């Protein structure tokens, strides 16, 4: 091989091995690998993953770089398991990690590890630990909850006994939603919160909790939830108890089962965050950080309100 050919080959190898610096000061690479870590194996997070894959495809189409998404979820909503996955992922030196925190304080040490190793981070569906600067994406959890609880108050004509399913109480988004439900109900003197359940974001537990609460409070008029699994379990419990139409349900999020409950008339409606958008913008923000571009501290992906009128639209 001639000296010129060797030089060209070496230059090509170096170009592939090192990031290229663009004119605007950002850098580009031929390939990126991002890790997405949800709270738990759960259909809501599958939609986040769908959004992440869409973003990967968009970046590939626009830039020609290959983008790999590693989706790794704890088998249960356990912060210890989630930290193990986060730390193992840090060890693989990805170009960025997007994570939905189970507990900001409990996740803090592992997040600090990632920052210390200069791995770009993005939080979705959760807020950063106090004092940590990490870009985060999500809808306004409180507003999402208030949309649901105000709707329940409306269909109950501002009078009745209601219950709240709290999800995973230590998860920030779930606890914020539960608190905001309470705030709305407190505004109405004839609305009484008679029970609160904990389903740990598990449909079966939600069903068991809802069934038990409805047994203990036969006069219950309505339900709201603080997580995606909660309203699905509540809906099942309402159907099993034969209280369809008697006990009102305003759901949360847009799992397929939730949409079916609306279609079947078991649930009145649902206040839905948009998980696909959260996954999409998580990857976009990670990619932008990986290129050295400035990113916003927060992206609001908004909430959708789903009723029988628009559930299939």
């Amino acid at each position, binding site marked *: 091989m001639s000296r010129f050919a060797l030089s060209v080959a070496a230059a090509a190898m170096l170009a592939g091995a090192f990031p290229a610096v663009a004119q605007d000061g950002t850098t580009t690479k031929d390939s990126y690998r991002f890790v997405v870590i949800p709270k738990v194996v759960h259909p809501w997070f599958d939609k986040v993953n769908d959004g992440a894959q869409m973003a990967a495809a968009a970046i590939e189409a626009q830039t020609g770089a290959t983008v790999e998404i590693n989706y790794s979820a704890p088998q249960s909503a356990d912060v210890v398991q989630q930290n193990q996955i986060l730390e193992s992922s840090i060890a693989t030196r990805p170009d960025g990690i997007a994570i939905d925190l189970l*507990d900001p304080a409990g996740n803090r040490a592992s997040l600090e590890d990632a920052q210390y190793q200069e791995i770009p981070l993005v939080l979705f569906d959760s807020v950063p630990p106090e004092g940590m600067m990490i870009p985060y994406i999500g809808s306004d959890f409180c507003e999402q909850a208030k949309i649901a609880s105000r709707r329940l108050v409306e269909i109950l004509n501002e009078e009745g006994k209601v219950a709240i399913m709290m999800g995973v109480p230590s998860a920030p988004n779930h606890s914020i939603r539960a608190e905001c439900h309470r705030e709305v109900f407190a505004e109405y003197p004839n609305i009484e919160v008679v029970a609160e359940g904990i389903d740990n974001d598990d449909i079966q537990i939600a069903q068991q909790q809802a069934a038990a609460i409805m047994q203990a409070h036969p006069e219950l008029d309505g339900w709201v939830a603080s997580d995606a699994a909660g309203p699905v379990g509540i809906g099942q419990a309402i159907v099993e108890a034969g209280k369809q139409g008697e006990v009102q349900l305003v759901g949360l999020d847009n799992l397929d089962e939730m949409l079916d409950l609306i279609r079947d008339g078991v649930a009145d409606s649902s206040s839905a965050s948009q998980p696909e958008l959260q996954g999409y913008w998580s990857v976009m923000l990670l990619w932008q950080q990986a290129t050295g571009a400035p990113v916003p501290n927060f992206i609001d992906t908004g909430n959708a309100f789903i009723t029988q009128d628009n559930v299939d639209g």
Partner: protein
Amino acid sequence: MQTTYKTKRAERDGPLAAFVRTPVLGVLAVLIVIFVASALLSPYFLTGYNMSVVARGLAFVALVTIGQASLMLLGELDLSLGTIGGLAGIVTGMLMVNGGIDPWISILLALCLGAALGFINGFLTAALRLHSLVLTIGTAGIYGGAILVLTRGVAITGIPPEIQFLGRGTIWGVPMPFVIMLVVLALAVFLTLKTPFGRYMYAIGSNRDAARMLGIKVDRIRVLVFVMAGALSALAGVLLVARLGTAQPSIGNAWVLGPIAAAVIGGVATTGGVGTIIGAIFGAAIIAIIENIIVLFGVSPYWQGIVSGAIVVIAISFDAISRRWLRKEN
């Protein structure tokens, strides 16, 4: 008695047969194979950071495994060890955060609580002549319920920084929980293999009635081992609180079946009298490495249970088949 028999047989069969027949060395061989394969297949596995991740993850489970394996040597099982660890962690957090008690005294009290809960398990098992497996299904519910009553499912935050080094600190780069685990492991190995107390444990696990006839105080030793197991679970819970910087109600959820599986993989029989603590820790290390490489290899979360289960089945099958083959050969 059993050791003498094994030694004579090893001398007769030669070193290879002895190697494979000895449960500790068999599981160590499996551990080495998995370790080397992981190192060859993933460029990230042997990095210092990843090794510390594996070591720290192993440390908490290993402390509970030491207690569970000790009980299994007696022929007992304690399904409440996870909730004891969780309750001790929560009580530590409540004492130091809500109660304003000195963190070190809080930790000491939490360890005492773990020992006391272990004592309750051991005492009731002995007094009611129940198998501990049955009894501890109930006490696990009570201790787990107490966690929910105390916390309403909400984590306790604000753990003082001065104790966080127990979970987050390192000594010469080695995570503190792992160092503590090694010290506990050394003591446990010494206790079980080098003291009369340990010999009595094996004797009780092999044949409780015969041990009783030989004058061994079976119930006293059984209660003491339950106390030790409870205290070790509490220690794991406290260290995890120090690591997380928060007392989580979910602490201990993963410590029910994991330590039993680790001990069984490590050659400890659930029927008692067979196996070693060090073998159980090798079993726990196998599980910890599998959990780590599943993430390093980017295995889909939907396949993780199948993959980790399959690796464990292959590992224990390899161990069992090689022993059977050698028994036939000899």
